[in-house]
């Protein structure tokens, strides 16, 4: 019997080891798993059960976060297939992509000077999520198709990382603007 702590995240959730994930099924599995392992189920059990239950619940939470997030799921799948994504690998060969990033960053810097900063920021956020979704679709093809292309998948993962950083900055600015303006 394999232990929870040695199973990979897909095995743990009884999901096929691929990029495409049925999110409703993932959510339902998550609830089922937590229902059976959560420490609240072991409130009166011995210390050992409680300790194991906490480890299992933490592991399931971690796996769920990875499988739910398009970027983390992609990185994880690549890692399972023996292609590790190096965090330090920052240089990008794609000039068009870099131009696009510079353009988006300039728009972000200008938001504060717009007549309607919040409106401008939300429009920018929409642009970012559209492009992120396009990368996500590409990553699905690079990982799940018959002629899977790990090099292409790695490149897409790196691009997605740029976007998540940008997304975080958008959120921070949105919070600041709302606190100032509303």
């Amino acid at each position, binding site marked *: 019997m394999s232990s929870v702590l040695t199973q990979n995240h897909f095995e743990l959730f009884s999901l096929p080891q691929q990029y495409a994930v049925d999110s409703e099924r993932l959510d339902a599995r998550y609830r089922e798993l937590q229902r059976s392992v959560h420490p609240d189920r072991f*409130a009166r059990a011995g210390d050992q059960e409680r300790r194991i239950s906490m480890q299992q619940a933490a592991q399931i939470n971690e796996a769920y976060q990875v499988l739910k997030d398009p970027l983390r799921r992609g990185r994880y799948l690549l890692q399972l297939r023996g292609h590790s994504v190096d965090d330090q690998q920052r240089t990008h060969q794609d000039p068009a992509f870099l131009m696009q990033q510079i353009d988006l960053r300039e728009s972000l810097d200008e938001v504060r000077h717009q007549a309607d900063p919040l409106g401008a920021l939300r429009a920018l956020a929409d642009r970012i999520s559209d492009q992120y979704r396009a990368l996500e679709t590409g990553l699905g093809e690079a990982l799940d198709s018959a002629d899977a292309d790990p090099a292409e998948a790695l490149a897409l993962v790196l691009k997605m990382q740029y976007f998540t950083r940008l997304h975080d900055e958008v959120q921070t600015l949105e919070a600041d603007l709302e606190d100032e303006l509303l």
Partner: protein
Amino acid sequence: MVLLQISEPGQSTAPHQHRLAAGIDLGTTNSLVASVRSGSADTLPDEQGRHLLPSVVRYLADGAVEVGEVARADAALDPLNTIVSVKRLMGRGVSDLQTLGSVLPYEFVAGESSMPLIHTVAGNRSPVQVSADILAELKRRAERTLGGELSGVVITVPAYFDDAQRQATKDAGKLAGLKVLRLLNEPTAAAVAYGLDRSSDGIIAVYDLGGGTFDISILRLNQGVFEVLATAGDTALGGDDMDRLIAAWLMQETGIQGDPGHAMQRRLLQAACAAKEQLTDRDEVDVFVDLDDGSRRQTRLSRAQLNALIEPLVRKTLAPCRRALRDAGVSAQQIGAVVMVGGSTRVPRVREAVAEFFAREPLVDIDPDKVVAIGAAVQADILVGNKPEDEMLLLDVIPLSLGIETMGGLTEKIVPRNTTIPVARAQEFTTFKDGQTAMALHVVQGERELVDDCRSLARFELRDIPPMAAGAARIRVTFQVDADGLLSVTAQEQTSGAQARIEVKPSYGLTDNEIETMLRDSIEHAQDDVEARRLREQQVEADRVLEALQAALKEDGDRFLSSDERVSVDNAARRLAEARNGDDARAIKRAIEALEAASAAYVDRRMNANIQKAMAGHALDEFK
């Protein structure tokens, strides 16, 4: 005392018994205790029929302690020995008192840890002890009403409480002699109370404005699973602040100048609070203020004036609402229901502002003062095992990011806020000197980049690191946050497998030594005996361990244990049952440890099978 019957191994265990459990809302202004009786949860009244217990404790020179209404009545007469709003001091340090000092006019003294002590005629009291006195009163009330000893309780805390504040609350429970099954976030408890009546799945917002704290939580309810998506709030914002604003206005209107003094300040706050409450269903009230010289001043406050006075506070609650929605990734339009919690949500302007913000009328059917205790009682009833088939599950999040201090006073986040708990994250560190055997870690909680802007939780010292060349040791430090939101840290050197020893220095919590002393004091005060209490605690623990083991063995002992293994487990259980009926607390503790060692492999197999079982139906059809 009822002695638990221990059945012979292999025989059936005792039939299921109903255990007494309670939910406790330990509030800034008022506290409540609730329990599930005949299938429905309700708050328990005192002998005079009052449900709310004012969270006020008065210490008298002869050592007597008054809790609740009696103490509150004396608050203005004896302000220095009558502690109100102690919840604001839980898990706080001496440096925090500067901001709270104007609210709480006590004489503080420094303790052994950095937790401040309040100087009273009966001696110095820590906020944890004051809270324990409130909890003990609720425990007495529950045990008298329910007619027996409580098996366990659930105590609620603001979702936004940090680790130190949670730990302080748990310590208070322990000091009051309670078995704390879980610290439950107040908004989650409220959602449970409402979720029971409405089986509709969807996204719920819980707006909780109490006496001293504000919380907003966004939850997803799906087939009995309450999943907290995000939480935000302000631990120093509540109805007390409204009272202060009104009191300041009263001083202005009635021409009271300068420092009013402790007693006068209390009277002003009481008048302010009463006026605020009356304006819930009136448009205008007359307010009277008694001066120190016996004369009385009068003024009039309208609801419109009140609304204008408190508007900045009401607006201040909306920023966390926006942040929680953003963190949850949902829009205000997606919220299916808004639940109101806390006495301050009775203020009409608050309801109005919340209705505007979420574009829907908030739910107020359950008394906002009682709803949290009721939800906690439901959870407590399940946790003690009275409803083994119940499917309800509460998945909470950590409200503030956990991080460690790195070079230059910066923080590095280890667990981001709104991560579902329990959670475990590991981080690797190395030594920077040859032969280095110790290392210090500073853990902080908060969202800011500079360590000084975050809240210091604890300093951990890793010791017994095997001496190696600089940079060769790989020390894996695991930060674990349990279902109560409490942090623990373990460390292991990876190349040698050596377990590093960890010394914890909590920044604002009580040291183990202080807890021990307080426990001793409280017991001495109750004319009890430390040893007797310790023995009783170990006996209860032994009963629990034996009961859980017998139930498990009955279910699958044959499946997971060879006959040899079964014999050794049974022997260890028999030895524990014998020790339990003796009077040596330490022997019981050793027997528990021995039984745990004997059954370790069994427990491991069981727990693994449990998780496999959950996914069993899916494995075949979906791996194409």
